[in-house]
C-alpha cells in the first residue's frame, strides 16, 4: 500500500466517523453543515469536469445546480417524494438544459463562450424568478426531504450525510474512470490543442458537448441534494455570482485535479464558517467588524492565487511532493 492509498483511506475513515462523533456530542448542526459542504463539493467537482478536464470556461454552472434543485423541489412539493424519481428527473432536466445551452454556446470560443454561458444562466435565474407557480422570487419551501425507501430516513441528519458522501464518492470515482478512459484522453487532447485534435479527426464539438452535458447532469444531482438538504429552493441558487463562487472553489482546490472541486468546497465553506463564528481576538481588536467582511479576505486570497499560484492549493501540495 502506498502513501496515496493510505491518505485516501484515512480521509474516508475520517469522513465516515465524523457524523457519529458529532452525534455523540449532540452537535447535529455540524452534521447538517458537513452535508452542505459535501453537496457543494459535488457541485464544484461537476464544474471541474467541464472547467478543468474539458478546458471550457463555463460561467453558468449555477443554472444546472439550480435547475436540479427546482425539478426535485417541485416534484416533492407536488407530492412525488421518492428520490428514485426526483433525483434522476433532476439529473435529466439539468442534462437537457446543458445540452441546449451547450449546443448554442459551444459554437463560439473564448470570451464569447464565457459571456454566453453567463447570460443563459442568468436567463434561467430570471425565468425562475418570474415563475409564480413555483414561488417566484419567494422561493419554494418543502415540507419534507425526498424519500429514499429501504428503511432509510433522509430526515435524519446522519443518514442524509452518508447518502451525500456516497454520492460524492461515486462522482469522484466516475470522474477518475472517465478521465482515464478513451473519452477522457480525447477531451484532454482537445483541451491542450483543439486544432490538432480536430485535424486528427476527432469530432471536437461533439466531445465537448458530451463533456458539458455530463457536468451539467452532475450539477443537477448536487441541486437535487441541496433542495432536500435545506428543504428550500430559491432563484438565488441560480444567480451568476453563485457560478462565480463555484469557480472559486474549483480554482482554490485545483483546476483539473480529481480532488480539486471537493477540496475547494471544504476549504471555502469551512473558512467562511470559522471566520464568522470564531473571530481572532487580536484581529477583532484592530478591526471590530472584520467577520462581516469575510469576502474581502476571500477576494484577496483569490487574487493572489490567480496571480501567483494558478495551479491552486492542490498544485502547491503536489509541487512540493515532486520537489
Amino acid at each position, binding site marked *: 500500500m502506498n502513501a496515496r492509498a493510505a491518505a485516501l483511506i484515512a480521509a474516508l475513515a475520517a469522513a465516515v466517523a465524523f457524523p457519529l462523533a458529532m452525534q455523540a456530542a449532540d452537535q447535529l448542526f455540524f452534521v447538517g453543515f458537513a452535508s452542505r459542504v459535501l453537496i457543494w463539493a459535488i457541485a464544484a467537482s461537476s464544474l471541474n469536469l467541464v472547467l478543468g478536464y474539458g478546458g471550457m470556461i463555463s460561467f453558468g454552472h449555477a443554472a444546472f445546480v439550480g435547475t436540479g434543485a427546482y425539478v426535485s423541489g417541485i416534484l416533492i412539493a407536488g407530492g412525488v417524494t421518492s428520490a428514485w424519481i426526483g433525483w434522476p428527473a433532476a439529473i435529466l432536466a439539468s442534462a437537457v438544459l446543458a445540452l441546449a445551452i451547450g449546443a448554442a454556446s459551444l459554437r463560439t470560443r473564448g470570451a464569447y463562450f*464565457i459571456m454566453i454561458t453567463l447570460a443563459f444562466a442568468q436567463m434561467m435565474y430570471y425565468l425562475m424568478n418570474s415563475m409564480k407557480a413555483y414561488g417566484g422570487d419567494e422561493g419554494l419551501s418543502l415540507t419534507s426531504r425526498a424519500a429514499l425507501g429501504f428503511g432509510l430516513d433522509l430526515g435524519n441528519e446522519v443518514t442524509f450525510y452518508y447518502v451525500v458522501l456516497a454520492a460524492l464518492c461515486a462522482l469522484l470515482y466516475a470522474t477518475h474512470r472517465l478521465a482515464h478512459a478513451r473519452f477522457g484522453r480525447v477531451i484532454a487532447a482537445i483541451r491542450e490543442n483543439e486544432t490538432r485534435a480536430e485535424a486528427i479527426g476527432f469530432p471536437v464539438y461533439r466531445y465537448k458537448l458530451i463533456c458539458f452535458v455530463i457536468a451539467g447532469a452532475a450539477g443537477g444531482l448536487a441541486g437535487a441534494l441541496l433542495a432536500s438538504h435545506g428543504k428550500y429552493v430559491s432563484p438565488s441558487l441560480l444567480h451568476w455570482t453563485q457560478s462565480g463562487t463555484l469557480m472559486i472553489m474549483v480554482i482554490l482546490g485545483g483546476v483539473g485535479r480529481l480532488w480539486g472541486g471537493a477540496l475547494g468546497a471544504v476549504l471555502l465553506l469551512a473558512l467562511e464558517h470559522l471566520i464568522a463564528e470564531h473571530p481572532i481576538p487580536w484581529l477583532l481588536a484592530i478591526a471590530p467588524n472584520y467577520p462581516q467582511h469575510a469576502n474581502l479576505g476571500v477576494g484577496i486570497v483569490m487574487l493572489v492565487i490567480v496571480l501567483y499560484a494558478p495551479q491552486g492549493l492542490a498544485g502547491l501540495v503536489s509541487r512540493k511532493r515532486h520537489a
Partner: protein
Amino acid sequence: MSWILILEQSLNGLQFGLMLFLLAAGLTLVFGIMDMINLAHGSLYMLGAFFAATLVQATGSFALGVLLAIPATALAGMLLEVAVLRTLYARDHLSQVLATFALILIANEVVRIVWGSDLQMTMPAALSGPVQLLPGMPYPAYRLLIIGVGLAVAALLYVLVAKTRIGMLVRAGASNREMALAMGVNIQRLFTLVFGVGAALCAVAGAMLGPLFAVQVGMGESILILAFVVIVIGGIGSIRGALVGAVLVGMVDTIGRAFLPHLFGLFLPPQFASAAGPAIASVLVYLLMAVVLFVRPQGLFPARG
C-alpha cells in the same frame, strides 16, 4: 392601447438602453482591444455611483458632484489597470475571469467598509417634476435629462473614436492588435487610457441612475450581465454595435415587460397569460441574444475583419 402609452414606454426603453450603452461601450473596448474579460466593470459602475452620491452631498450641487465623480472614477479605473489588470492581459481567460471576480468581492467589501451598504442620492429639485412633452403626455424631467446625457456621450464617443488620432489607434487596436503593436503604437499607455475612459463612462451611468435607483453594494452585478448581452449582440469591440445592441436590449426589455402580458391576454386564457407573460418578458432579452447568435455568431457589427 394608446399611442401615448407606446411612446412613453419607448422613451423608457430608450433611457434604459442609453445607460446600458455607457456600460457596454467601455466593456466592449476593453474586450476588443485587450482581449480581456473584465467582470469588475460593474464594480466601477457602483464606485461611480458612490462617488457621485458622496460628492453631490459634499458640494451641495448635483451637477458639480456628478462632474467630479467622473474623473475620480476614471482615476480609480486607471489605478486598477496599472496595479492589477495589466498583469492579466497575457493570461488566459480563466485567470481573467477569476481575478476580476475576486475584484468584485474586494470592491463590494471595500465600499461597505468605507460607505456602508447603501447611500441616498437625490435628484435636483428642479428636475424632480414632469415636463409636458405632448398634450396629455407629461414625462419625468429627470429621465429626459438621462436621455439627453446618454445621446450626448454617445455622440462625443463617436467623434472621439471616428475623428481623433487616439480613436484611430483604438480602432486599429480593436481590429488587429498585433498589427497595431507592430506599427509602433504604445499599447500600454493606450490600454490605460481606454480603461480610464471606460471607467468614466461607468461613472456617468452610475451617477445618472443613482437618484432613480438605489446607490447600493452589488448594484453593478445584474446590469453587468445585460451589458454582456449587449456586447454579444452588437459584436465585440464595436462601439456602433454596442449602441445598437444597447438600445435594442433596452427597448425589448421595457416593451416586453409592459405589453407582453397584455398581448398574451388577447389570445390565451387569462390564467395562462398572467403566468407566461411575465415569465417570457423576463427572458426576452436572452432569447434575442440566442437568435442573434444563431443568425450572426459574431454579432451584428463585428469589429474584427
